[in-house]
């Protein structure tokens, strides 16, 4: 009876109900859309970092985290091949890629500049990158073991083009100076301007020859599914040899967490603002309804309807408006998300980045299961406050005034 009567009652003043419902609908759809955008950034940015830079976790010497190396690869991993093979056997692991990061001086003979070089196995990096990276430069490096990939702006600064030669000077693992001539096989765009000015990539065996060591600095482990990260990381932290540890990609790349905190902060600001608007809009509707229908409420009370039943009916009216608003809001958000994802909207490059990105939103069930109930709770609470007046309704006075 309450459900049936309350759904009829909400359509008494269609315009007012529709306005309140529109406020809820717009609030829900905009909040879900904003969260879906953050979800896309979280997912897209995260996956691009994982597959383009960090992998899911790094395996490295524990000392490397806390101490400064006297010489390059002092805290490297010696028996990395055996360890990599062991990790690779884990069915959750997709790629294990060894790496060395070192600093050096890159020179054309006429101009020299400091570089941050990364030594990799190009084949492993291609496997690790998958669809997330442009593998063309890595393929060139794969075909030319003594080749070097230069950051886009580094190549420009050195005025060197593909096919040109550069010499990289650095200190070896024993502390001596060593140099190696590389053939420039291409340029890379890291997406970050400052990196493009300093970045170089070479093949691991060549770098090991240059650094006079067979060690690697770390193993980059990429999983088949990011959802397996916590479990796999935890497993390997227990199984790694003494002195060796594993570090999640979020620890390797802490800027990701900061960026996400920034976005979450924005949502945390928008959420209460939208809910406040929903709160006042619903409260106003119920309050107006109470005032307009006081004679009717008095009649129902006179007929023997209990205060609690009347209260429940009013709250049910608010809940219906909230429920319909939430459902409509979710449907509109799904429609908008589809349009955005198919519109091909290019967003400008973020600060410090060199390339824009394709605007996408990523709906996750968690968004709807969070926003929907939160909105409904806000609507119901905002209904309860004015609906409490029903307990103080004076039947005679309300009949007289009605």
């Amino acid at each position, binding site marked *: *009876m309450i459900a049936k*009567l309350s759904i*009829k*009652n909400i*359509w*008494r003043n269609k315009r007012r109900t529709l306005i309140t419902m529109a406020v809820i609908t717009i609030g829900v759809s905009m909040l879900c859309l904003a969260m879906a955008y953050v979800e896309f950034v979280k997912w897209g940015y995260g996956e691009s970092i994982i597959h383009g830079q960090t992998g899911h976790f790094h395996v490295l010497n524990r000392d490397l985290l806390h101490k400064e190396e006297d010489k390059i690869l002092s805290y490297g991993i010696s028996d990395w091949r055996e360890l990599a093979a062991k990790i690779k056997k884990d069915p959750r692991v997709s790629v294990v890629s060894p790496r060395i990061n070192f600093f050096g001086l890159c020179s054309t003979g006429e101009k020299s500049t400091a570089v941050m070089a990364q030594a990799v196995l190009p084949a492993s990096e291609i496997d690790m990158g998958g669809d997330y990276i442009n593998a063309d430069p890595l393929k060139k490096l794969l075909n030319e073991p003594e080749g070097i990939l230069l950051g886009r702006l580094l190549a420009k600064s050195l005025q060197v083009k593909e096919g040109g030669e550069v010499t990289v000077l650095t200190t070896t693992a024993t502390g001596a100076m060593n140099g190696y001539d590389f053939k420039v096989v291409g340029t890379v765009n890291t997406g970050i301007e400052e990196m493009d000015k300093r970045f170089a990539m070479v093949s691991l065996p060549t770098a090991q020859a240059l650094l006079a060591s067979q060690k690697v600095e770390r193993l980059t482990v990429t999983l088949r599914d990011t959802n397996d990260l916590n479990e796999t990381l935890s497993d390997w932290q227990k199984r790694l040899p003494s002195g060796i540890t594993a570090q999640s990609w979020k620890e390797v790349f802490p800027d990701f967490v900061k960026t996400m905190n920034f976005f979450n902060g924005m949502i945390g600001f928008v959420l209460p603002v939208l809910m406040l608007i929903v709160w006042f809009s619903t409260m106003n509707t119920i309050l107006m309804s109470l005032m307009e229908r006081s*004679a*009717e409420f*008095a*009649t*129902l*009370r*006179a*007929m*023997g*309807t*209990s*205060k609690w039943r009347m209260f429940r009916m009013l709250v049910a009216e608010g809940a219906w408006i909230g429920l319909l608003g939430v459902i409509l809001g979710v449907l509109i958000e799904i429609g908008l998300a589809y349009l955005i994802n198919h519109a091909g909207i290019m967003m400008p490059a973020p600060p410090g980045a060199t390339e824009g990105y394709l605007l996408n939103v990523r709906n996750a069930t968690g968004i709807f299961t969070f926003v929907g109930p939160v909105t409904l709770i806000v609507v119901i609470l905002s209904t309860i406050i004015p609906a409490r007046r029903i307990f103080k309704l004076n*039947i*005679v006075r309300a*009949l007289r005034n*009605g």
Partner: protein
Amino acid sequence: MADFLNGVGITKIYPLGKTEVPALRGVDVAVQQGEFTVFAGPSGSGKTTLLNICGLIDGVSAGQLFFDGGAVAGLPDRQLVNIRRRSIGFVFQNFNLVPVQTAYENVEFPLLLLNTRSGQRREMVEKYLKRVGLWDRRRHKPAQLSGGEQQRVAIARALVKQPKLVIADEPSANLDSQNTRAIIELMDSLNREEGITFIVASHDPIVIGAAHRVVRMRDGLIDGQAAEN
């Protein structure tokens, strides 16, 4: 014959700012089962206040009220609600039908409050809507009915639960004389056929003319009681 409703020394005082306005000043009233009683009097005489007290929707400031043999003054709201739900039907001056419900649903509502089974509910609603001549218009909402029809629906709503008492406050105030006569004839026949007690507040001569007993009021006191029919 024992009084069905008995009020002794009923006093009702309304606060008005810092002063107090007495609406009833120690009224004694008794209504017997099956009576058609009219409280008559000019505006401000206290007839509606007395009617509201008899309908258990208003309390007394002093005095005692007995309903169907039991003292009801000072009972908690929950118990008064139960008595009203089971035993008292109301007919109002402005009809006070629920506008979003059809005539059928309006009449059905008191039975829903009593958790009456659906089959019996339908039977009762049909009986009383037919009794007031509106079964064919059962799917109409109040706005689609004339004033007279709305008041007939209100009467059906008041009677459908077969109450012991029907309280009617100025039931003819918003009706023309033709509709007033029709409504009063209906109430009168229901009173005679079903033995339902009616207490009506009115100053309409047509209504007063139909009463078994008229309780005339003035300034919060009973002016005189006369057997009309």
